[in-house]
């Protein structure tokens, strides 16, 4: 970052300093760090090039009464300059950029061919993310727990249209395309929450299709995984009647996959792909009027009695 700070102090302040936790220039892992590095160098060279051409243009205005180049040179020199600056110099710079970025950085950040210690499957749905762990019965949604400082392979697919999986502070993005399973490495240097968002337009609620990667120390991650793999202690009749057509609560008869698995919903941080923080009042708002909170999403407004709502809320809040 020091080199970059020299190149463009105001931009660096603007870019690396503020911003939420979805800032591609505030890398939290190897993949994104090489990309950010690439960017700062390209920015530096670009600023020089931009400055040069704008200066030439400005000179054209300043010296508008003199029909020759500085030093009295004429058309011959100008044509040679076109060849030098417009052909030779760009070729040299482009070849350098190509070798560095498209051969070197590209391969050094590629997903490893061999399986990593941990593999998560992320499945895009209109407009939420299903998350599964290889070798575990844990299923969750809209948050991906990973152990810190560990290479985790994410295999991304889709249940419907094309989405794109992108955690800006960790790595580049990769699309979720029907019939394909694309792979990406997630690796976080420090514990923390890294926000991401669907990057390919996927319909009405594309704007509210966000996801969090939660990186924690290995022991805490292991405990989380073990707890999440467990089934729920029991079912609820109101839930079975109204919600089991779309949701799964493992250990009960609710087994559908239209909406997120709710087995441990109460221990999640957010509701509806980061649309609302997961608090009891927000849950109430969401359950009673999901179409206002996230217009067009695939969970319909249901019409239940007050007593039924309260029973449901208590039940959903108990799914820890």
């Amino acid at each position: 970052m020091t080199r970059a700070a020299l190149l463009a102090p105001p931009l660096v302040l603007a870019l690396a300093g503020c911003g939420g936790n979805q800032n591609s220039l505030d890398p939290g892992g190897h993949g994104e760090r090489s990309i950010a590095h690439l960017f700062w160098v390209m920015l530096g060279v670009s600023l020089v090039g931009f400055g040069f051409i704008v200066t030439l243009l400005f000179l054209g205005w300043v010296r508008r009464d003199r029909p020759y180049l500085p030093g009295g040179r004429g058309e011959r020199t100008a044509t040679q300059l076109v060849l030098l600056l417009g052909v030779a110099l760009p070729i040299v710079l482009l070849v350098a950029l190509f070798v560095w970025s498209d051969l070197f950085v590209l391969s050094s950040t590629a997903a490893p061919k061999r399986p990593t210690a941990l593999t998560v499957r992320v499945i895009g749905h209109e407009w939420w993310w299903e998350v599964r762990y290889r070798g575990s019965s844990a299923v969750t949604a809209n948050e991906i727990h990973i152990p810190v400082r560990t290479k985790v392979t994410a295999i991304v697919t889709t249940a419907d249209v094309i989405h794109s999986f992108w955690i800006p502070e960790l790595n580049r993005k990769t699309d979720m395309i029907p019939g394909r399973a694309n792979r990406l490495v997630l690796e976080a240097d420090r514990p923390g929450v890294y926000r991401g968002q669907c990057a390919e337009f996927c319909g009405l609620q594309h704007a509210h299709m966000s996801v969090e990667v939660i990186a924690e120390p290995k022991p805490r991650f292991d405990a989380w995984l073990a707890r999440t793999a467990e089934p729920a202690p029991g079912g609820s009749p109101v839930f079975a009647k109204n919600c089991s057509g779309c949701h799964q609560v493992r250990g009960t008869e609710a087994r559908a996959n239209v909406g997120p698995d709710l087995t441990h919903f109460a221990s999640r941080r957010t509701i509806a792909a980061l649309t609302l923080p997961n608090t009891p009042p927000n849950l109430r708002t969401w359950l009673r009027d999901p179409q206002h909170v996230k217009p067009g999403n695939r969970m319909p407004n249901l019409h239940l009695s007050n007593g039924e709502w309260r029973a449901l809320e208590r039940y959903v809040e108990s799914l820890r």
Partner: protein
Amino acid sequence: MAVVERVERLEEIWLERPGVLGWLTTVDHKRIGLLYFWTTLVFFAAGGVEALLMRTQLAQSDERLVSPETYDQLMTMHGVTMIFFFIVPITTGAFGNYLVPLMIGARDMAFPRLNALGFWLFLGAGVFIYSSFLVHEAPNAGWFDYVPLSLRQYDRGHNVDFYALGLIFNGIATTIGALNLIVTIFKLRAPGMSWNRMPLFCFALLATALSLIFALPALTADCILLELQRKLGFHFFDVAHGGDPLLWQHLFWIFGHPEVYIIVLPAFGIATSIIPTFARRRMIAFPLVAMAELLVAFIGFGVWAHHMFSTGISTATLVFFAAASMMVVVPSTIQIYAWVLTVNLGTPVFRAPLMFIGGFITFFVLGGLSGIMFAAIPFDQATTDTYFVVAHFHFVIFGAAVFPLLGGIYYWFPKVTGRMYHEGLAQLSFWLTFAGTALTFFPMHIVGLLGMTRRVYTYDHGLGWDAYNLVETIGGYVLAAGLLAIALNIAWSARRGPYAGRDPFHGGTLEWTIPSPPPHYNFAVVPTVRSASPNWDEEARQEDLERLERDELVLAGGHETPTTTVNDAELSQIAEMPPESPWPIALAVSVTIAFALLLTSHYASAGGFLALALLMLAGWHAAEPEEA
């Protein structure tokens, strides 16, 4: 016959019917050019209003000014309008039609009626696609309309059908226009205008038209496959039946990337017209620039997959397309230095048109540099589909394609209307649009890097995006004010501006040798061409007067224009040009009805109207002029 009589005779032969009817049946390239101009400006205004609505919605986080449904329609139609119904038709249709014959010394386009047909079909396609707003079913899957989102399962209304049929329809119109430009440039150049003397503007339009001819079929095929799947249940894009959604993307971008050059090439052409005039010297490195223009169009066909770097296609493919994309840079840098150094070598007068070119160069370099960054695959994969991309292509499309257009409007305004625009207001409009463009699009780079993805109808507070978005929205309104100032200037000056005379800027090309506005027949005598800047060639102009005296190549005997050989432009034949005709507009109406019926799945009646259109073609030929 005396000279005066000969000119009067020409006037009589080339005069068209007066009044509205004259406009509906016209085959005069200048009138058709103006029809294109006004129509595309209406579409530009529509696309602009769509953009302002979106910017207002995005001014702050969690705004609920428009619903997500409406936003998606605005966003899709903004893209579709600006690309298919503004830039391409205004450059090829308005500027190309009006100026190419004047610059090459012809009396009309090669196929005047086809020209009219192209316009009316374009208008029909525009009305067709915009009528979708009346039924609240405007296209809504983004301008690149990816499957499966645009398939029936996910998009049940007519929205995507309007899109696909509208683009097929518009593609017919554009192809017709492009063919006409190519043949005109090949065959109708005045005797003596060999390739090395043809204005660079015409080179640019030739490259554009050639690209269109080769690029459009991919889009048309794509849209046909999509409609077959949506309406008749085929499975081209359906994985479960052996199809592939990436097929849509490949075909789309095989068209879509050349389209970028289709958009900017005419702008390059305008820049290379304005710069020599105001720098008061000819362009340096003429052959290099001409070659660069053709080369850009050609390489543009080999880079499409750089729009698909994050789809997971193989690394070898990625690397190939990244390398090809880098090659496109060189022809552009050649042109940039040629422009800038021409300004430096000349004694430029910075009037409004040249100022717009200055803005163009600034923004084009900016957009070009961010474009090069995308050829670094890992960086592309990080920033694609974010506002960084939105910033990049608006600098290229608005900054680099529209700025020269705006400069071009001022530059040729006196030629078209015979009156001068208001210089002060013009310069004010430049500074407003310049500041507006920078304010609107520059911060988009930053929010993009801060993680803001594109095509979102709203965004959360607390991600650090609010302030930038607010600035962008304010910039949008400044930009709109600048464009309004231009509109005002045109409206006022067209009626009140001082008379401009034949050649107010001392331009080098042939259009400045004739009166303003140009007479119906364009040139009283087929002009003499002995250099690349014929209007600066006193002897050749003297020769024209002598030819007129001698009645050599005046062609006052009929509705005629000379044709020449393709390479050396030697006189080969005198061609009889067709008179005005109601057939083009009638045919276009019938095709429009056919498309409306296709939309509503009335295939038999649609077939009926297409058959009617074919019958009209027969009528059109039956009324062909007698061989002279």
